[in-house]
């Protein structure tokens, strides 16, 4: 193969390689799902539960990074969106657990001291 022909092949392959590298589509749906779960955690009172609040914060940071990487590194953006989703779900569960445990404490108090209001 002559050098000129080789150069033509190499130059032609670069766009193809780039196209193959960015074949992962931007993870808009995953990002939106994580954001929705973050909203649910917020509504469930996660900001009032320290550990839940921490994971909400981590989810927000992951979402921000994913947003910045969108269309540049979609694979990592998808991975960070999935991680943000897990953080948000964990924040939601921690908030619910705290709420249930608080309710259990009140019920136990009401059982032990039936004539005392816990409100």
């Amino acid at each position, binding site marked *: 193969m002559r050098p000129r022909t080789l150069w033509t092949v190499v130059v032609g392959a670069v766009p193809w390689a780039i196209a193959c590298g960015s074949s992962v589509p931007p993870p808009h749906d995953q990002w939106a799902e994580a954001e929705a779960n973050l909203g649910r955690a917020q509504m469930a009172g996660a900001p009032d539960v320290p550990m839940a609040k921490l994971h909400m914060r981590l989810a927000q940071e992951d979402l921000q990074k994913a947003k910045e990487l969108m269309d540049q590194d979609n694979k990592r953006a998808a991975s960070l969106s999935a991680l943000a989703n897990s953080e948000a779900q*964990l924040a939601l569960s921690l908030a619910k657990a705290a*709420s*249930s445990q608080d*309710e259990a404490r009140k019920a*136990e108090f009401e059982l032990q001291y039936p004539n005392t209001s816990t409100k």
Partner: protein
Amino acid sequence: MNPSCYTAIVVATVLAGAAACSGQRMPPKALVDARADYFRAKDGPAMNLDPTQLHEAEVALDRAERAWQDSPSDPTTVDVAMIADRKALLAEAEAAALQAQREVARARAQIEANKTSELKTAKGALNKTQQALGQTQMQLQDQERQTATLEANLKEARDTIAKIASVKDDERGMIITLPGEVLYKTGSWELKPGAMAKLDQIAQVLKDKEQPIVVYGFTDSVGTRDNNMSLSQRRAAAVRDYLVSRGVPQDLVTAQGKGPDDPVADNGSVEGRAQNRRVELVVQPKQR
């Protein structure tokens, strides 16, 4: 390069490669945390309370292990390990929530049971009180009936006696007044036959009443006081004895002579003296 030197380089290269392949690379902290958190969750209540969530954590951990094996330097490998860690923590949180909800349900059920028990006890006490109240009301009604019967009997007795003697009421009880002329001959305490007939009727009415009776004898002011006192005492005793002989309980009848004391009319006139010569039967209220 001599052959021995060449051989040493090849051996070193092979050993380095073998060391790398033998897993001497340190796993990322996220994967170490994920493993620890998963096994802690597996040993905790999540195993029984939320096995589905725990299974998801296990699947996520497997994925993280594979990613670490296949692409240890890929940035997403750490993401996958962190996801596995969060899944394990989530399984624990869900189990904690379920456990708390069960405790709430148990406490609420016990509170309801306690309330039901207290209500049952209160109802029992209320029933007893109502029964006692019912009995008291029945006793009250019985007493009211007895009182009504007693009053009716007294009225009947009074009406009967009023036909043969003067009857009035004061704070001492029912006062039956019999004129002395009707009962005795002048200066005597012996009862006239007509007096006995009247006393028979009075005894018939009073003998079952269980009411104390005091028979008072009175005279006018003619004569000495001693004689009048003696005469009035004997006259009262004669009436008492007659009533007892006709069935009035002896322990309920007493006699007392009062002579000229407590006159009801002027002793200066014949009519007044006649009114003062009398016997009074004081029928006292029944002693309870």
